[in-house]
C-alpha cells in the first residue's frame, strides 16, 4: 500500500531574479514500510520535495496524496492538524524545544494531539527507551550530545504515531559513531515497527543502508533504485 503518491509535482520559485524550477514533474510513490533516501547534489530539490511531502510548502502544480487524502490545496489550519497526526519530522539541526526536558519534548506532540494523559508518560518513556535514552528523560537538550538530541528528535517524530517520518539530512551534523547509532535505531524501527522513513541526504552512510534510493538532479528524478537488504 502506498503511503505517499505524487503526480506531476512541480515547484517554481518566481520571487528570485530568474525563476528557478526547484521540482519538475515529479511522480513518486512511497510504499508503507519503505526506508528511502532521496539523494542529489545541493540545489537538486531534495529539501523542496520533502517540504512538499510534509505539507510545509505548496507545489506550483501537481498533486500529493497521503494515503487517500490530497494535501495540495488543503487549508492551512487543516494541514497543521493533518501534519500533527500523520507526519513525523526530523530536522538537520534537531530543532528541539530548548526549555523542555527530553520526556517533555516527546510528550509535547502527544499533548498537541490530546493523547490521553495517563498513557502519555508511559509512551514517552517507551519511545525514549527505543532510541536508547531512557536514562536521559529528564535532561534538557543543551545537556545532550548532538547524537542524543537527534535521537530525541526521532522519538518526538514517532510520538504522534505518524504514517511516515521525513528526515532532512538527519546525520549531517553528527559524528560517525552518532550517525551509525541513529541509523541503527531508525533501521530497527523501520524493520520492527514497519515505520516508513524518507530521508533527504548527502551522507553515504545513510545511502548505503537505504532500501530505496531516489536521485534528484535539477528538480527531476533521474534514478530510482531498489535494493534488497
Amino acid at each position, binding site marked *: 500500500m502506498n503511503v505517499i503518491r505524487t503526480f506531476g509535482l512541480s515547484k517554481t520559485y518566481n520571487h528570485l531574479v530568474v525563476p528557478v524550477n526547484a521540482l519538475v514533474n515529479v511522480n513518486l510513490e512511497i510504499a508503507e514500510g519503505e526506508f528511502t533516501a532521496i539523494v542529489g547534489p545541493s540545489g537538486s530539490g531534495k*529539501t523542496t520535495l*520533502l*517540504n512538499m511531502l*510534509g505539507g*510545509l*510548502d505548496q507545489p506550483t502544480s501537481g498533486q500529493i496524496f497521503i494515503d487517500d487524502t490530497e494535501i495540495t490545496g488543503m487549508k492551512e*489550519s487543516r494541514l*497543521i*492538524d493533518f*501534519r*500533527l*497526526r500523520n507526519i513525523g*519530522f526530523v*530536522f*538537520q*539541526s534537531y*530543532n528541539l*524545544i*530548548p*526549555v*523542555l526536558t527530553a520526556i*517533555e519534548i516527546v510528550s*509535547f*506532540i502527544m*499533548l*498537541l*494531539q490530546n493523547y490521553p494523559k495517563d498513557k502519555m508518560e508511559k509512551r514517552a518513556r517507551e519511545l525514549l527507551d527505543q532510541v536508547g535514552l531512557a536514562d536521559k528523560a529528564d535532561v534538557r537538550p543543551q545537556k545532550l550530545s548532538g547524537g542524543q538530541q537527534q535521537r530525541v528528535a526521532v522519538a*518526538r517524530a514517532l510520538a*504522534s504515531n505518524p504514517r511516515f517520518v521525513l528526515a*532532512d539530512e538527519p546525520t549531517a551534523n553528527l559524528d560517525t559513531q552518532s550517525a551509525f547509532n541513529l541509523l541503527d535505531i531508525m533501521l530497527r524501527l523501520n524493520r520492527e515497527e514497519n515505520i516508513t522513513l524518507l530521508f533527504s541526504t548527502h551522507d553515504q552512510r545513510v545511502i548505503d543502508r537505504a532500501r530505496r534510493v531516489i536521485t534528484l538532479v535539477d528538480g527531476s528524478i533521474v534514478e530510482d533504485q531498489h535494493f534488497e537488504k
Partner: protein
Amino acid sequence: MKILVTLAWRNLWRSKRRTMITIASVFFAVALAINAQSFQKGSYELMIDNMVRYSTGYLQIQDVLYEEEPSMDNSLLMSDSLLISLKPFMKRINYMVPRIQNFALASAEAATRGAMITGIDPAIERRFNNLPDQVVDGSYLNGSDHAVLVAEGLAGLLKVRTGDTLVLIGQGYQGSMAAGKFPVKGILRLRIPELNNNAVYMPLSAAQDFYAAENRLTSLIIMPADPDDADRLTEELGEAVDSNWYVVRSWKYLLQDLLSLMKFDTAGNMVIIYILYLVIAFGIFGTILSMMIERTSEFAMLLSLGMKRGRLAMVCLLESLFISFTGAIAGAVLALPVVAWYHHHPIPLKGELAEMILQYGFEPVLPFSADPQIFVTQAVIVFVMALIIGFYPVYKIFRMKTVERSSR
C-alpha cells in the same frame, strides 16, 4: 494549557538577561511615572488644600444672584427654612463658617483707601484658617467686640496702629448707608499681598450692624466631616435648599480658574510622561524584536510539528503577560516607599521660590500624593502598553511561513 504556561515561563528564563532588561524597562517606566504623577498631584493637592482651607472652604451656600453681582443686596438670609434644610445633613457637616464680605472705604487721620471688609465668627475662623496666628500686633477679636483687625499692608497705607480708630463708609443692604467708627484691635500679617493691602476683619454681628444686614451673610462656608464627601454633599444640599433663593457651590466650582490652570499644567506634564512611555515602549519593543529574531526558527519548527498558531501565539502572549505584570507590580511596589516617604516628608523649597510661595500663604514644600489611584493607573497603563507590544510576536506568528525557517 499547563504546558503552554510551562513553556512560556521557562522561555522567560532561557535568556535571563533579556528578560531582566525587559522587566526592568517596565519596572522603571512604572516607578518613574508613579513618582512623576505623585509629585505633580501632591503639589496640586497641597495648593487646593490651602485654597480650600484658607479661602473658599469645600462648599459655599450663596444667594442665587451673588455670583452675578457680589453685593450686600444679593446676600443670603439665614432663614429658618435654610437651617431646617441643613438639619438632616448636620452629621456630615463638621462645621460652618458664616461670612459677610463687602468693599468699603477705610479712612484714618492721614489717608483713605478701599478695603475688603470681612465679618467673621472669630471662634470659627480660628478653627478654619488659624487667623489669630496672623496677628502681629494687638490681639485677636471676640465675638462681641465692636472693633476691627487691619491687615499690615493696609495699616501702613492708612498709617494706623493698634488703638487708633478707623472710619468705614460703604453701601449697606438695600441702599442703606453703612458708616461707623471702629477701634483697631490688632494688626494682621496676611501672606497674600493683595489681601494684606486691603483686608479688614470685624466680628460678624458688628459687620451685620454696619451693613444693616441683620441675619444676612454673603456666604456660608461648609466644611464636611469627610472632604471626599464634598461633591455628594454639594449635590444633595443643592437639592435640599430652596433653589429660588440659594445655590450651593463646591470648591471645584469656586476654584475653577485654578483648576483650569492645573489641567493645562497637567497636560504639559502628560506630554513628558507620554515621551517617557514612548522611550520605554521602544525599549521593550527592542527586546521583543531580538527575541523574535532568535526564535523564528523555533516557532516555525513548532508550527511544522503541528502546533496551532493560536497556541503558539498564546505562549508568546503569556511571556509578555509575565514580563509586563512582574515589571508593573515591581515598579509600583518600589515607588510605594519613595512616595510614602515624600508624602510624609515633603521636599522643602528654599530661596526665592520658597519666598514667593510663602507670600501666597502656602507652605513652601513639595509633597507627594499618596493617592492609590496613581499607582493603579500608571501600573495599568504601562502594563497594557507592554502587553500591546507583546502582540507583535503574535502578529508575526500568524504571518509566519513555516517552510522558510523550519527546515533549517
